[in-house]
């Protein structure tokens, strides 16, 4: 129906080639890296300050991971419970097996609402299903109200970071962007830029017929959905339009309201270094009798889109515990060097590298498993204790099992054969020491890329084993 939607699958290996190309480019862009590093500097300080307010952060992580573990492993029981409670509150649940079905549901809801203007608050699942393109293709005007998402929408780019969507954009670029699209005078004040967006958006909240939001948690006990945000745009999106549509993955369910007493503050502290995010709002259906305002209808699109494939992998099921705080991105040396766009995924960084192969295919996305130094900073940062860096290893293992690399196998076998025979190993070492200088002189093409930026060390006079033997004497 539209060319904007990703219809035909890209050529095999395209994602990997794009990653390698963009990574090489970004790594050389020292200015960009410095900018991202500086932007994250304040985050580290405030995160540590807030973590210190916890009387025991590690134990709190246990509680948070237990709450999610227990919910994800009982989805069969909790999803129907949530649905029943949400429906009793007056909301309607729409189940979507995949992105196409989810888009169709939203488009049909907009048609029944006779919607003209749609306002959206930040929703990563809508990025995942490419909702905006589908809405625009059907002629709906749709505006992202979150400041960062709004900037990205004007730039025609996806989010750079799933919590800080435009952290890579400089203020002068934003000033130019607003000048071009909104006709505002240039300014270098972040405050003035924020006020421009604020003034622009106010009218749109009042005029919109439908508000679309995401959801951070679905509470099975009470049938409420919980939305976390700082700006107040989601509050406005769910307050003023006639219809509220929320889109959430099935893994967002938690059992009890009390679980949020742990999860809400930890999400804020891990993700943005805050004691609590500014607005944490629980919605239970449309406007009730006696209430001053609120939408007439509330709909929730519950999305699978291959989450059940990840659920079926017991070893990596805990990746579904993710509360999308973004802490693992903020500490990842790879993310900080290659940047958010290089991943080419909806969910960037370490957690994105773990889940994308499950959601979109291991064969095409396994290269992300290598986008890690396996330092474990992500696993340490995760408030719900997802074993992120080991899952990257698990993905590498699974990829090697399902489609082994012939050449690598032969190489490994050859090495094993040599390593098992000490005399052969010693001879190999001797040969290597003798020819190292020659390699330096000739610069064979296989090594040219490596040698372009590096020097080979001089060959040692003797092998480690010989040196060791002498020392022992």
């Amino acid at each position, binding site marked *: 129906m539209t060319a904007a939607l990703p219809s035909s699958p890209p050529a095999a290996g395209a994602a990997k080639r794009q990653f390698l190309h963009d990574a090489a480019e970004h790594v050389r862009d020292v200015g960009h890296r410095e900018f991202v590093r500086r*932007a994250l500097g304040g985050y580290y300080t405030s995160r540590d300050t807030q973590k210190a*307010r916890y*009387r025991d*952060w590690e*134990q*709190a992580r246990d*509680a948070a*991971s*237990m*709450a999610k573990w*227990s919910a994800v492993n009982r989805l*069969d029981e909790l*999803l129907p419970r949530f649905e029943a409670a949400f429906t009793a*509150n007056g909301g309607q649940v*729409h189940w979507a*097996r995949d992105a196409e079905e989810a888009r169709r*549901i939203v488009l*049909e809801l907009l048609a*029944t609402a006779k919607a003209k203007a749609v306002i959206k608050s930040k929703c990563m699942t809508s990025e995942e299903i490419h909702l905006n393109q589908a809405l625009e293709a059907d002629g709906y005007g749709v505006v992202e*109200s979150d*400041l960062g998402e709004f900037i990205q929408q004007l730039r025609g780019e996806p989010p750079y970071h799933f919590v800080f969507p435009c952290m890579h954009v*400089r203020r002068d670029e*934003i000033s130019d962007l607003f000048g071009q699209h909104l006709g505002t005078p240039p300014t270098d004040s*972040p405050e003035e830029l*924020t*006020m421009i967006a*604020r003034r622009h958006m106010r009218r749109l909240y009042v005029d919109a017929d439908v508000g679309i939001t995401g959801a951070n948690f679905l509470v099975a006990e*009470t049938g409420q959905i919980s939305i976390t945000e700082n*700006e107040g*745009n989601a*509050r*406005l999106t*769910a*307050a003023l339009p006639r219809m509220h549509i929320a889109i959430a993955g*099935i893994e967002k369910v938690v059992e009890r*309201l009390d*679980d949020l*007493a742990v999860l809400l*503050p930890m999400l804020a502290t891990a993700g943005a270094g*805050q*004691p609590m*995010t*500014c*607005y*944490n*709002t*629980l919605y*239970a259906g449309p406007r009730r009798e006696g*209430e*001053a*305002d*609120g939408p007439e209808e509330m709909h929730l699109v519950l999305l*699978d889109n291959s989450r*059940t494939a990840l*659920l079926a992998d*017991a070893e990596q099921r*805990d990746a579904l515990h993710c509360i999308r705080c973004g802490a693992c991105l903020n500490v990842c040396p790879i993310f900080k060097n290659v940047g958010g766009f290089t991943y080419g995924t909806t969910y960037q960084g370490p957690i994105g590298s773990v889940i994308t192969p499950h959601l979109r295919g291991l064969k095409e996305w396994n290269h992300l498993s290598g986008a890690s130094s396996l330092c474990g900073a992500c*696993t340490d940062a995760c408030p719900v*204790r997802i*074993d992120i860096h080991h899952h990257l290893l698990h993905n590498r293992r699974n990829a090697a099992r399902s489609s082994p690399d012939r050449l690598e196998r032969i190489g490994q076998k050859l090495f094993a054969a040599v390593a098992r025979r000490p005399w052969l190993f010693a001879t190999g070492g001797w040969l290597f020491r003798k020819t190292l200088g020659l390699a330096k002189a000739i610069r064979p093409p296989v090594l040219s890329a490596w040698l372009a930026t590096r020097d080979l060390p001089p060959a040692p006079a003797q092998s480690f084993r010989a040196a060791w033997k002498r020392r022992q004497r």
Partner: protein
Amino acid sequence: MIRTAAENATARAAIMARVGEALRIPAPPPHGLAGRSTSPVDAAGHPSLAILPLEAARPWLPDGGATPAESLAVCCENLTKLRAEVFQVPDLAAAADCLAAQARQRDWRRVAWHAHPLVEPLLAGVPCVSHRIGGDAGFDKDTLEACDAGLSACECLVAQTGSILVSSQTCGGRALSILPHVHVVVATIEQVVPTLADAFDLTRERHSGSLPSMLSFITGPSRTGDIERILVLGAHGPKELLVILVGSHAAQ
């Protein structure tokens, strides 16, 4: 055109079948959790499916104060750190004076409010037009948007995080606390609870059976860090949050 109930039921059944199939293989315990003494694990070291009672987690989270006076102090400290302005006054008459002074100082022309025993006594001294939100007539969104300030009550205040809990049932609906440029909350000091868990307990007691369609924890004025991660107050919601706390523990 519209998806039928039958289609929805088919999708539901398909997803639930996949979930059921996937969960036939049990998952290992959360990473790093097996063996920790405080975790509820069975003899084999696997976490039990009956999950940690929140009581166990309470002492690990940020402190909310042990006594009402302590909680009040923690609450005020957190609110101030979040850049909310706190006014502690002894009684409702003093609260009305405080509000009138703020209205004059900030040159408010229009104030929105809702019917509530803590809110109404404060209006008498406000030197500007006031609009009641709620009631049978409903309200005009544009009128509310044009208001300088929204005056509301709250369900409770949470000392632990410096949050204010508002509901659509008891605090003038959804928009009053988010659309005007300034949000003024009036509450008594008895409404301060130590922790988020206490706030949930209170919600359950007060609203069981008929939850408000919206419950919102407001933690400081609206903010964003989207431009170069620099903090700016007043992104889309109120730029300023004023909290008038009525009463004092010393006097009791």
